[in-house]
C-alpha cells in the first residue's frame, strides 16, 4: 500500500505550510466546506473509519451522536495525549505533518458544527508543541484557520492545550476534566461527551491519527478508504513497533498486513542471534500473543479474534532474554503509578499487584502469591469506572496465562531464572 499519512514524513520540510499546500494540503477541508455538514458525517460513516485512539469506535457514528439541537456551543477535542506504552504514532504525525491534523480538526468542527477545536497535547511533547504553534500561526495568517476559513465565511479556532504528565488524561472524559483545569480523573458515563462533554457542552473526542485520516477520505472518497483494508477495517493504519526488533519505528500499512509481516518484514525481525518470545500487539494494556499466533491480519477485528486487541497499534516484541515476570512487574509499576485514584480497586489493587510481582521477581515469592495475583487482578478488571482498570489487570493475568512456569521457577529457585547478564538490554545496548 502506498503510504497516505506518512508519504512525505521523511522530506526535510514536510511540516511546513508551504510544503503541505503544494502536496494537496487543505483540499479535503475545501471539499468539506462545499458540502452540508450532515453529508460529511454520512461520508465518514460510509468510509467505515474507526477511531485510532484504542477502542476502534466508528468515527462517523460518534459524530452523529453529537447533540445538534443544543443551544450551547459544540467542541472537538483532539486527543494528542499519546501515552500508552509502546505507542508513538501521533508523535510522528504531529511533528512531521501538523497541518494534516489541523485540517482534520477543522473538518471535524465543520461536520459537528463546532467553532473551536482544542488539541490536548501531552506535556512531554513540548518540542512538538513548538512546531505546532509555529505552523498554526502560519495557518491562521493564510486564512486556513480563524476567521473566514478558506473564504467560506465560517469561523473556526484551533487551540493548543498542554497537559502536564498524566497517562489518565488520555481517557476521553479525564481529558475533558483536564481541559477544564482539573485533575485528569474520568467522569461517570453516561452522559457521554457527545451529549455533555467539555464545559458540559456536546464534545467529540478524537485521536490525532483518526483526524489525520479525514482529509484523504474527503478527497479520495469513502469507498477508496474502505477498500484499503479488510471489511470494517478500512484505511491506512500506523503501526508502532518497538522492543527487540532490528528496525523499531512507525510503519504505515493496510490492516490486511499480518502481525508476522509487520514484525519480520517491516521492522526487520528480531535482533541477530535471538528469537521471538512474546508480542504485545496493541500497547501495554492488551493481552500477549505468542509467536505462533501472529499469522493474523493486524486489524481491530482479527487481533481481537486472536485473543488480544489492536488497541493503539503499539507492537512490542520481546525475545528469549526477557523475563516475563519482570515484564509484568515493569508494566504494573506503570499502572500503579498512573492510576488516577478515583476507584478503590484500581488505586489500591495496582499498588498491591506491583508489590507482589516485585516480591516474586526478587525471588521472595511464595506459591500462594500466584492465586493472590489472580484474585487481586480479577477484583480490578471490570470493577472500575474506566477501562484503565481492565488494562491494569492485564499484565499479571496475561503473563500468568502464557508463562505460569516462569512464575513457578522464580518461586522454586528463589531467584530470577534468566541469567543476570541477559538482564534487559545489555546485549541490545551493545549492538547499537
Amino acid at each position: 500500500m502506498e503510504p497516505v499519512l506518512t508519504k512525505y514524513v521523511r522530506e526535510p520540510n514536510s511540516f511546513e505550510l508551504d510544503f503541505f499546500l503544494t502536496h494537496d494540503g487543505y483540499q479535503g477541508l475545501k471539499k468539506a466546506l462545499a458540502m452540508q455538514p450532515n453529508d460529511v458525517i454520512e461520508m465518514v460513516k460510509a468510509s467505515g473509519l474507526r477511531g485510532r485512539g484504542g477502542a476502534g469506535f466508528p468515527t462517523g457514528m460518534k459524530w452523529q451522536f453529537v447533540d445538534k439541537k443544543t443551544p450551547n456551543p459544540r467542541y472537538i477535542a483532539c486527543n494528542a495525549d499519546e501515552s500508552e506504552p509502546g505507542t508513538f504514532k501521533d508523535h510522528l504525525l504531529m511533528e512531521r505533518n501538523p497541518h494534516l491534523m489541523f485540517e482534520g480538526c477543522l473538518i471535524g468542527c465543520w461536520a459537528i458544527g463546532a467553532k473551536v477545536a482544542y488539541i490536548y497535547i501531552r506535556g512531554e511533547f513540548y518540542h512538538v508543541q513548538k512546531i505546532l504553534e509555529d505552523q498554526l500561526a502560519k495557518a491562521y495568517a493564510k486564512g486556513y484557520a480563524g476567521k473566514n476559513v478558506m473564504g467560506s465565511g465560517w469561523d473556526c479556532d484551533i487551540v493548543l492545550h498542554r497537559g502536564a504528565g498524566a497517562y489518565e488524561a488520555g481517557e476521553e472524559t479525564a481529558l475533558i476534566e483536564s481541559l477544564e483545569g482539573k485533575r485528569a480523573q474520568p467522569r461517570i458515563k453516561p452522559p457521554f461527551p457527545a451529549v455533555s462533554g467539555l464545559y458540559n457542552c456536546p464534545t467529540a473526542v478524537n485521536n490525532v491519527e483518526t483526524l489525520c485520516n479525514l482529509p484523504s477520505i474527503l478527497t479520495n472518497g469513502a469507498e477508496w478508504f474502505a477498500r484499503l483494508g479488510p471489511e470494517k477495517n478500512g484505511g491506512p493504519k500506523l503501526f508502532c513497533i518497538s522492543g527487540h526488533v532490528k528496525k523499531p519505528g512507525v510503519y504505515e500499512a493496510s490492516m490486511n498486513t499480518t502481525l508476522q509481516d509487520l514484525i519480520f518484514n517491516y521492522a526487520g525481525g528480531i535482533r541477530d542471534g535471538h528469537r521471538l518470545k512474546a508480542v504485545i500487539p496493541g500497547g501495554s494494556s492488551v493481552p500477549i500473543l505468542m509467536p505462533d499466533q501472529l499469522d493474523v491480519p493486524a486489524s481491530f477485528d482479527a487481533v481481537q479474534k486472536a485473543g488480544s486487541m489492536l488497541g493503539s497499534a503499539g507492537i512490542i516484541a520481546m525475545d528469549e532474554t526477557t523475563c516475563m515476570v519482570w515484564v509484568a512487574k515493569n508494566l504494573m509499576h506503570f499502572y500503579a503509578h498512573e492510576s488516577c485514584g478515583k476507584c478503590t480497586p484500581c488505586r489500591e489493587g495496582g499498588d498491591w499487584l506491583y508489590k507482589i510481582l516485585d516480591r516474586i521477581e526478587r525471588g521472595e515469592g511464595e506459591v500462594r502469591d500466584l492465586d493472590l495475583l489472580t484474585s487481586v487482578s480479577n477484583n480490578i478488571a471490570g470493577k472500575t469506572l474506566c477501562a484503565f482498570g481492565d488494562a491494569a489487570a492485564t499484565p499479571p493475568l496475561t503473563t500468568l496465562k502464557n508463562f505460569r512456569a516462569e512464575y513457578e521457577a522464580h518461586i522454586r529457585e528463589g531467584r530470577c531464572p534468566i541469567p543476570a547478564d541477559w538482564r534487559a538490554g545489555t546485549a541490545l545496548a551493545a549492538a547499537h
Partner: protein
Amino acid sequence: MSFHPLMPYGEGWHKSDRIVAAEGQPFAFTPDRVRQLEEICGKYPPDRRKSAVLAALYFVQEQQGYLTANAMRHVAEFLRITPAEVEDVATYYVMFYRAPVGRYVLQVCRTLSCALGGAERVVEALSEKLGIKVGETDASGMFTLMEFECLGACDRAPVVMVNNEYWHERLTPENCSKFVDDIKVRGEAALSGCYLKVEN
C-alpha cells in the same frame, strides 16, 4: 482492616508521599507573563479561566523553578479560583516540581520498551556517575535524576527527557558518563534532540 483478606494492609503497604509545598518567597508573575497568561485565558470561554491552570503553573515553574504555596495562591487569585483547586492540580500532574530541583532534571523513561533497551542500567549508570539516587539532586545542584513513564518515543529507547522539554535518545549505559560530562560543558546543546530530527 484490609480491603482484601490476604493483603497486609496498613503494615507499610500504603504510605502517602505527599509533599507539603513550602511557603517560599512572595510571588507575582512578571508583567510579561501576566500579558501572556491573559492571552491564554482568552482562548477559553470567559467564565472558564480555570482551564489555564496548567499553563499558569508552567509559568510559575519557568519563573522560579518550582511551585510554592505563595505562588499557588497567586495563581488562584489570577484565575479567580481557590488555592485548594490549584493545589489539587499541582499535586496530580508529574511535571510540576513541588521542591527545588537541579539545573538539569534528567527524566529517564523506565517503561517497557525503554526497559527492554536497557533503561534500568541507564538509571544505574547515571545514579552512579552523579552519586545520587532516583529523585535526588546532586551536591552541586546541577543535576536531578528522575524516572518517568513512557515518553512516547519507544522506538528510540532508552529515551531521556531533560527539564520537561529537551530530549536525548538511545542513551546506552556505557555512554551515561560522557552524557553527563557533555551536559556540564554544553548544556542542552549536548542532547541529541528527538525523533526524525536525529535521522535527517
